[in-house]
Structures are given as structure tokens and as C-alpha cells.
């Protein structure tokens, strides 16, 4: 029996384009808010009052804020700001699809910036820094994976511990202060090579390319199928001869490697190693993955969705800045959005189940 035709239109729409709908809603919200803000400012400047005055202001307004928000430069800024969360979300998608969680992202990213900065101080070039940070991230991830797989510890607890431990190691390595360096080409990764044109920085291309690779890995490889199988039903995965522990170890290690890379990108943007950077990043990353349609109970989720989720977070932050909202407003809104996204996920599941 065709059950899909019995579901209401909204449910079907949301099931197919949920993350994109959320992103579109956020963008439209800011367009509306900025247009209203510009018109309100015009109204105030012209000393207009009342409804007709407002209409006049709407007609005569220059919409500076809105134009700035919709400009190419802003678009590139948003993309650049997405890179760190997006790269981390690639790894997190794998973990969440396998019914796990990794809370140590932020700490691993900070550790990676510190380690990278220290290596640059020692005169190591960009390839060396990349290799070291990727390896370091993979090591921390493998440690998480080993604890989860070998001792059957809850990922939540293991990575909560790692959240503290990795942050501590970062502070220790950095001597409890930021690690500065003089000259380096590390900045090229995240600087705009073409401030007037449409070309975004190399980091964006790296993220897009890796997103494509990861999407293929998740959908089109045996490893990817095994990730979904473990997340959907670990007992079945075991019954089907999938080496659950090895796969989990690989998932966390690979994700850690992506977190390490995200750290290099943050280092490139900050131009210093900061052991206190990326605090709370795990929430942005998990939110991106969940907004992207993944379920925290595992077995569902997509790379494309997570990327749209990451973009949503960046649009929220940028839009809030254009609205001159204080940072606590951003935090409240993002917090609300996480809960709303999870709520939508539950609602969608319950509708799909009936």
C-alpha cells in the first residue's frame, strides 16, 4: 500500500526538503527583518509617523542594510564562516548516523590550532602542519573510538571526558596563552584571494570537495552502508557479520581527522593558536547535523543536509550581526533553533511511523 500519499503535504515536503526549508526560512526571515529595519530607520530620519508614513518610508528607503546582506561579499563571508563548522559536521554526520555522538569537537579543534601554531613557530610549512593536525585529530578520534568500541562505553561519556582532556592538553601545550607566530602562508587557506570577484577562499573549495567525497562514501561505499547499518540496528549489523567495533573505530578516527582539518582552517582564520577557541563548537556542529535531518538515535542523516545545516548556522550568525543584535541574542536564537530542529525531527519520525 502506498502510505506516502496518505501523509499531509507539509509532512511530505518537510521529509524531502526539510533542511533546505529551514535555511530558506532563516534567509527570508532576515531579508524581511532587514527590510523592515531599513524602512524604520528611513521613517525615523524623515520624521514620518503613522501607517501612511510607514508606507512612504517603505517606498523611499534605500535598504542599505538589506543590500549589504544580499551582496556577493556577504555571501562569501558566510561561506568562509561556514567552513569550520562544515568540516566538523562532515565527521559528526558519520558519528551521529552510527548512533554515536562526539562532544569533543571544540576541544579537538582548539588543540589542532595550538599544535599547528606551535609547528609554524618551529618553521614547519603548510603541508607539514596539515599532516600533523590531521594525524593528531585522527589520534584523538581513534582514542574515542577505541574506548567506545572496545569497552562499550557510552560515546556521550567518553567524548565528554575527551572534551575536558583535549582542552586541557591544548592549554598545556600553549602554556595557557595564545600561540602567536610571525610569518606564515597558513592564512591563504581562509583569506579571500579575489576581494572584488566571486571566488571564495581555498578553504571553501576544500570543504566542498570533501563534502562531495564524504557524500559518496556515505551513500556509495560498503563502509558507508555499514555506518548506516550500525546506527539503524547494531544487533542486526552484528548478525550480518559487520565488524561493528572496527567500523566504529574507523568512524571516530576519520571524524577526528576532519576535526583536525577544521582546526587548521580556524588557525588560518585566527592567525594564532588559541587554546580557548571553539568553545561550544560541538553544539553548532551537532545542531548543523540535526538540522540537516539526522536523527540522534542513528540510522538516518545526510551529508548534504548537514552542509545546509552548517550554512543555516552561518546565515543566522551573519544575519544577527547585520541586525546589530548582541551576541547573546544569537545564542538564544541558535539554542531555540536546535530544539526546534530536534522537535521537527521527532514530529517527522512519529508521522512517518504511522
Amino acid at each position, binding site marked *: 500500500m502506498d502510505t506516502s500519499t496518505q501523509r499531509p503535504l507539509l509532512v511530505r515536503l518537510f521529509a524531502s526538503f526539510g533542511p533546505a526549508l529551514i535555511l530558506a526560512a532563516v534567509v527570508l526571515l532576515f531579508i524581511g527583518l532587514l527590510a523592515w529595519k531599513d524602512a524604520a530607520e528611513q521613517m525615523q530620519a524623515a520624521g514620518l509617523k503613522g501607517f501612511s508614513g510607514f508606507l512612504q518610508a517603505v517606498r523611499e528607503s534605500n535598504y542599505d542594510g538589506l543590500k549589504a546582506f544580499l551582496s556577493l561579499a556577504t555571501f562569501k563571508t558566510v561561506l568562509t564562516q561556514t567552513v569550520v563548522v562544515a568540516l566538523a559536521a562532515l565527521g559528526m554526520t558519520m558519528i551521529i548516523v552510527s548512533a554515536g555522538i562526539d562532544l569533543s569537537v571544540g576541544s579537538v579543534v582548539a588543540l589542532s590550532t595550538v599544535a599547528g601554531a606551535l609547528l609554524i613557530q618551529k618553521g614547519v610549512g603548510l603541508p607539514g602542519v596539515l599532516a600533523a593536525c590531521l594525524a593528531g585529530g585522527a589520534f584523538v578520534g581513534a582514542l574515542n573510538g577505541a574506548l567506545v568500541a572496545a569497552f562499550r562505553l557510552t560515546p556521550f561519556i567518553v567524548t565528554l571526558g575527551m572534551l575536558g582532556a583535549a582542552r586541557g592538553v591544548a592549554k598545556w601545550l600553549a602554556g595557557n596563552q595564545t600561540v602567536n607566530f610571525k610569518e606564515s602562508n597558513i592564512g591563504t587557506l581562509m583569506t579571500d584571494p579575489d576581494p572584488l570577484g566571486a571566488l571564495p577562499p581555498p578553504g571553501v573549495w576544500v570543504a566542498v570537495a570533501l563534502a562531495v567525497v564524504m557524500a559518496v562514501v556515505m551513500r*556509495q561505499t*560498503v563502509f558507508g552502508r555499514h555506518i*548506516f547499518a550500525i546506527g539503524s*540496528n547494531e544487533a*542486526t549489523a552484528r548478525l550480518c557479520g559487520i565488524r561493528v567495533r572496527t567500523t566504529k573505530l574507523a568512524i571516530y578516527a576519520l571524524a577526528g581527522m576532519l576535526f583536525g582539518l577544521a582546526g587548521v582552517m580556524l588557525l588560518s582564520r585566527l592567525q594564532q593558536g588559541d587554546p580557548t577557541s571553539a568553545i561550544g563548537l560541538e553544539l553548532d556542529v551537532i545542531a548543523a547535523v540535526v538540522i540537516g535531518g539526522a536523527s540522534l538515535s542513528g540510522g538516518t542523516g545526510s551529508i548534504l543536509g548537514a552542509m545546509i545545516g552548517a550554512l543555516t548556522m552561518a546565515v543566522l550568525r551573519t544575519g544577527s550581526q547585520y541586525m546589530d543584535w548582541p551576541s547573546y541574542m544569537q545564542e538564544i536564537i541558535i539554542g531555540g533553533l536546535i530544539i526546534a530542529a530536534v522537535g521537527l525531527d521527532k514530529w517527522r519520525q512519529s508521522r512517518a511511523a504511522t
Partner: protein
Amino acid sequence: MACVRKAFGATQALRNVALSVAPGEAHALIGENGAGKSTLMKILSGAYQPDAGNITLDGQPFRPADPLHARECGIAMIYQELNLAPHLSVEENILLGEEPARFGWLDRAQRHNLARHALEQLQQAELPLAAPVNTLPIAQQQLVEIARALVREPKVLIMDEPTSSLTQLDTENLFRVIGRLCARGVSVIYISHFLEECQRVCQRYTVLRDGETVGSGDMAVVRVEDIIRLMVGRELKDIYPRTPHALGAPVLEVKELAGRTKPRRVNLQLRAGEIFGLAGLIGAGRTETARAVFGLDELAAGEVCVCGNIPAECVPPARHSPTAKEPSAIGDQPSQEGIFSSIATRSPADSLRAGLGLLSENRKEEGLMLNRSVADNLTPTRLGPFTRFGLLSSRRQHAAAREWMTRLDVRARGPEQPIGELSGGNQQKIALGRLLHHDARILLLDEPTRGIDVGSKAHIYRLIGELAAQGKAVLFISSYLPELLGVCDTIGVMCRGELVATRPAVEWSEHEIIAAAIGH
């Protein structure tokens, strides 16, 4: 209880059940697996609502709305599986949900007295009230469970298979407890497969079969044989298609197999083209045997030997010394096929590579990935044919899935439909199809027809016959005797963790199987 009926969908679980229990009487409720005992007791304890029929309690019409209501009316139930909060203390467990409180504050002294009083009724006053129950042995945990039922001073106490996890000595203790309860005027409904136990404890009995009361009377004047006849005495309605097949060389040998708790001792040999039925009561260790053979559970002792072309990495290292065995003389296959090897690392992955396949009895919990597609559920053990340069082709995977869906007559929208949306019978066909897609030579099927409709059942019987005709070996675990007798070549019966008897199916009768299963 009179004329109680209950249907689940099209399945008539209870058709016409009558049961009457006097105050202070221990009453045995007897019947095969699936006869309707549990359903009846769930109605009595308020978990289910009957479709028709009357229940009277102390002469008053009684219709429990929910378990809480039934408990307040004096019906207490002790389930087969222990229902205790393992980290809480004995006292907290006894009073769980019944905490004496004043304005939400727990009353310590009263709590103590109530728990102590309940334990004294069982003459178990020496049980430490403060100890967490997970530190107690199973038998004492069971007493805690009974004590909890006694706190409310029940009129009727239902015990479902209370001795299945008890030793002989603890069982004797439990019988004394039941005797004391009856002397105090509590009625006990005692559900057990072990008829000797029923005879010792109970004064009267009621036998259920296929959801109907088929007999009741005084325990003192009835023979065990008569009760067994009442339990079984059904006509063979189902037709079991038999595909002619010949038995070949042995392909699987299980020697002195023992797991952590169950099974305790299993020896069996499976031959190519053989359908080997494994009968026994629930909890006899049949599922555990299949899981141990497949490598899902650890072995405590024994060996699993698979015959034939086994990949080199599955052959054990030297520490499993007696690996290569002399070819068995029974088979008509040439001897190069007759080399036995025990599987080395004993993981499901090794078993699958050696050609074993397991169909889990627990379709929803273990067997299937419910939110994944039909195709993903059919093919996970053998994705190789759809892979090129490491990349999977969903198109080819779906094409293969479509082929299996046609061959197994699966009703679904398509290979991409989530399997959770299909009916039980179609789900089971997909689960079985996974073994076929894997091309397993030895199929371990655990309750393959549980909870599915008659049409799907017939299809699965036919499929099993065809598999045997292709020379595959099938281990068929079932609690439904007619299907075992109708489908299998050989039937082995398990009782309390041991495989106690193995004979060709034609030499068994239902009566004999039940007698062997209850250790009679």
C-alpha cells in the same frame, strides 16, 4: 472467568476460555506455547481488554481497566522474567509503587515494617532489607518479587513459569511458600510446563489449547499422560508441502556445546539437504544454541565444526588441536568434501564466510534495520556483486532486491521502501531472503514463522523444502510442533539446556516430543 475471547487482528488468541479458581486454591494453568495462557493472564491482570466474556471476582463482575486497577482489586502477577530495579535495595523494590508516604515524605519506620512483614509471610525475615537486589542470587530475587506482590495483600497471585530459573532446592522452597500462601486464603494461579511441579503444588488444573479450555479437574485423580493428551490433541489441519530431497554428507557438527548459562550440552550433526527440527519449551536453550553456533554468543565449552570449502582465515590456529577430523562415513559424498574444521575466531563474520546464516527469532529487535530500505535489509551480508572500484551501485542493488522480492512474493512498494512499513510476513520473507542472497549453505532458522500470517507461513515451509532439495542444511527451531513434524527430516528435543533426544521425524509423535521437552 467465562467465555473469554480475545483477538489480535485476524489471530484469535482466545476463543472460548473458562477458568474458575477457589479461594486458597493453587490452580495449574497448563498449555503448549501459544495456547493462550499468557494472553488470558494479561486480561486478568488488566494489561489487555477482553473482546467478550465475563470475569467475576468474589461474586462481583470484574473488568480491570489497567494493571493498576487490577492490583488494587487484589490481583498480583509475577512474570517469568524478573521485574526488579537491580540497583535499588530489597526494601525499595518490595515497596516500589506502594511507598507509604505522608505529604510526599517517605515514612521510614512504616516502610521498614511493611517490607519486613511481607518477607515474614514468606519466612524470609533474614533477607537484608538494605542490600541492592542485584547482589542477591536469582532465587532470593524471586522471593523479593513475590514479597512485592504480597504487600497489597492480594486475593489472587498469578505466577508465570516461576521455576524456570530456579534450582531444585529453590524450587522446593518456592513450593512451601505457595503452600503457606494458600493456607492463608490466597488463590494461586500457577503456570508451568513442568507437569510434575503442577501435580505437586496444585489441587486443580485447567488445560488450554489453541485458545480454548479443553479440560479441567482435580490434580489428584488425573495422570500426566492424560494432561499431555489434552494439551496436544489437535487435528493436523495445516498442509505441509514436502519437496523430495535426499540427505548428503554432514556439513555441520556441534560437539559438547555449552554457553555461559545455556545451552549446557548439545551434540548434533547436520547433513546437506537435511531439515533438522529443534523442539523444546521456551527457555530450553534452543535460541542460545543457534546463537552459539553462529558465533553471536561466547562458547564456554565445545566445538562447532563446519564441513566443506572454508576460507583459510576461518580455519583455527593450532591451539584448537583436534580440528581436522576423519571424514564421516555416513555421507555418500567423496571424502575431500568431508573435512571438518571448527571455526576459529567464532564471530558472525567468520560464520557468514563459512556459509552459515542465522535468522533471528527477534525480527524487530535484532533481525531487521527497521528504518532502512528493503534492499538494504536484503543485501548487507553480500554487497560485493554491486560494487565496482569500491563504489556501490544502488541501481544494481535495487535490481537484485527486486528479483528477490518477486521470488519471495514480497508485497512492498519497491526496494527503497523502509522495511518497518511492511507486514510481519513480508518482513520475515526479507529476513529469510537475506540468507538466500548470501547463499548460505547452512541456515539456522529461529522461529521463522513466529507472528506471521498463514499464507506467509506456507510460503516459508515451501521455501525451506526447496532449500533442502538444493542440498542446503536447515536447522529449524520452532515451538509449534505440527510444523516441525510436517517439515523436518530429523527432530531433536531440548530440555533445560540439553539436547536430550534426536530421532528421525517419522519416529516422533507430538505426545512424545512434549514428554521429552518437559523431561518426563
